[in-house]
């Protein structure tokens, strides 16, 4: 299905990533955003609020983030495409309801423009430390999809993709961007509506009395109806059967194979190859592979250039989709290369996934960063150089000591005394 021209503000713009995400959401057919504006994501909410009314879409500033996430789930079951926009503290507040969203299989998108630090942290500066929270933040078994764009153009393009994936797999889809990309301005081309592919809602068309809201299709995803259209609906966070009725009694009788949680994880895991999007470069004769995502991908490009200047064979694997994680790809590369180098703006999150999937075949080096800034490319280059030289198999994630870390631990602390 093509995008509706009413929703697409075609043209060439110079805009920041947040603004581009706002345009992307509308182009994807988003009809409702409930949000509680928070730095550094505010411009996305502002943009959508500004452009939505002309297209018949709505932005409501909710009372808080709990209200925001709950409102979009309700809107989603009423039949429209929805999103919420947040950052660190707001994202934390949304965690419980994300599990509910996964359980009731409401398609929705969360845009997280990550900031630095825990708690209020550094509101106006960057971080990539919510990556594990995106995957595991709510309790219980569920799967999500998370995408990490690297430019304003991608925040437009991948916001549309996020909506498409949400409709297709009916799971929470997270756009895990960060302040750097959100506040970076570049040329953004918004194509004509007929060039934008969008995924329509999977509506059920059969007889009313036969509708089972959680009866899956072959790809394990059920069809939806609109709440209020006269179907019998029971949508609950309790474990439920295909009718949506709680199945506590059946569990007691040993009928736990009916638990829908198996399907909630399988609909993503078994479709992972279709969902995962990666980009790779210079992989043919690579001894070391840099695995990066989001803004760190663009910073790593410079580090790789420096390392290649010293004659080191480095490949670059970019995780456009971070969740589900590309287990197979990393495992396959691990058998061919000496080491992985993972620069990320945190003290180790995705790097542990790389280690897990390399199954001890290759060394794994973390280039950490505490947030509020990006890596010094020289640090990445030096970590690559070390990884290429290291002959021993080291059975743990090796943390590279960056200039910043050296300053903090060897200089800064002493200076403060």
């Amino acid at each position, binding site marked *: 299905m093509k995008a509706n021209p009413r929703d697409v503000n075609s043209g*060439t*713009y*110079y805009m920041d990533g947040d603004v581009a995400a706002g345009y992307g959401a509308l182009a994807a057919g988003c009809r409702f955003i409930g949000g509680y504006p928070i730095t550094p994501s505010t411009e996305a909410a502002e943009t959508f609020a500004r452009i939505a009314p002309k297209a018949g879409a709505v932005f409501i500033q909710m009372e808080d983030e709990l209200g925001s996430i709950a409102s979009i789930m309700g809107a989603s079951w009423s039949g429209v495409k929805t999103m919420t926009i947040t950052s660190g503290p707001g994202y934390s507040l949304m965690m419980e309801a994300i599990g509910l969203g996964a359980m009731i299989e409401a398609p929705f998108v969360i845009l997280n423009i990550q900031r630095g630090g825990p708690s209020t942290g550094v509101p106006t500066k960057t971080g990539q430390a919510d990556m594990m929270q995106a995957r595991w933040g709510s309790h219980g078994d569920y799967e999500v999809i998370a995408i990490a764009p690297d430019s304003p153009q991608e925040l437009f393009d991948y916001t549309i993709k996020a909506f498409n994936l949400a409709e297709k797999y009916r799971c929470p889809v997270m756009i895990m961007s960060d302040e750097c990309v959100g*506040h*970076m*301005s570049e*040329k953004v081309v918004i194509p004509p509506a007929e060039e934008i592919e969008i995924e329509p809602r999977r509506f059920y068309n059969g007889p009313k009395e036969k509708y089972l809201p959680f009866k899956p299709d072959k790809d394990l995803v059920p069809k939806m109806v609109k709440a209020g259209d006269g179907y019998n609906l029971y949508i609950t966070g309790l474990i439920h059967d295909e009718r949506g009725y709680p199945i506590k009694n059946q569990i007691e009788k040993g009928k736990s194979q009916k638990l829908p949680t198996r399907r909630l994880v399988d609909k993503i895991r078994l479709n992972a190859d279709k969902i995962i999007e990666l980009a790779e470069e210079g992989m043919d004769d690579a001894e070391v592979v840099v695995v990066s995502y989001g803004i760190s991908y*663009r*910073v790593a490009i410079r580090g790789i250039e420096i390392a290649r200047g010293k004659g080191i064979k480095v490949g670059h694997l970019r995780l456009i989709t971070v969740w589900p994680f590309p287990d197979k790809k990393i495992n396959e590369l691990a058998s061919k290369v000496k080491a992985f180098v993972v620069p990320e703006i945190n003290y180790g999150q995705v790097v542990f996934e790389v280690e897990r999937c390399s199954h001890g075949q290759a060394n794994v080096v973390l280039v950490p960063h505490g947030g509020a800034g*990006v890596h010094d490319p020289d640090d990445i280059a030096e970590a690559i150089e070390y990884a290429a030289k290291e002959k021993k198999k080291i059975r743990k994630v090796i943390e590279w000591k960056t200039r910043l870390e050296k300053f903090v631990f060897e200089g800064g602390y002493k200076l403060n005394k």
Partner: protein
Amino acid sequence: MAEIRFAGYGGQGIIRSGIIVGKGASIYDNKFSTMNQAFGPEARGGACSSQVLLSDTKVLYPYVTVSDVLVAMSQEGYDMFEPELNDKGILLIDEDLVKTKPTRGKIRSFSIPSTRLAEELGNRVFANVVMLGFFTAVSKLVSKEGMEKAVADSVPERFIEHNLKAFQKGFDYYK
């Protein structure tokens, strides 16, 4: 490839300046550009900077490493970013707001009373646009036409004329 840094206080239009240069280059001059901004939690008054990378090809690494041009609209901004300036770079300052150290290397230094000139035009909010006119004339990195279009495109319609006048004033100040 050129790396440009604007530095000053929140409220001076430092980030807007970066946007205008980036827009002039990438939308109207058909080059590639990336603009990044840095500001604190304060709405106004805090240290603030923006950086613009101009290139004939796609900008991959999006940050300034060594700047070719530093535009300083505050003493703090000058002090912080002067060491980052290339030995052969261009330094532009608002002469009423910034006191410079002796120049190093082959740095070419230019000064303009941009805030004062803007006040003469009726409002100090035009100071950054006066500076952009001066920047355009001195650096020649972005075409004058491109910059004028970008200025006109970045301000409310009723202020376009005022802004273009301010731009011209800065442009003419460089002789």
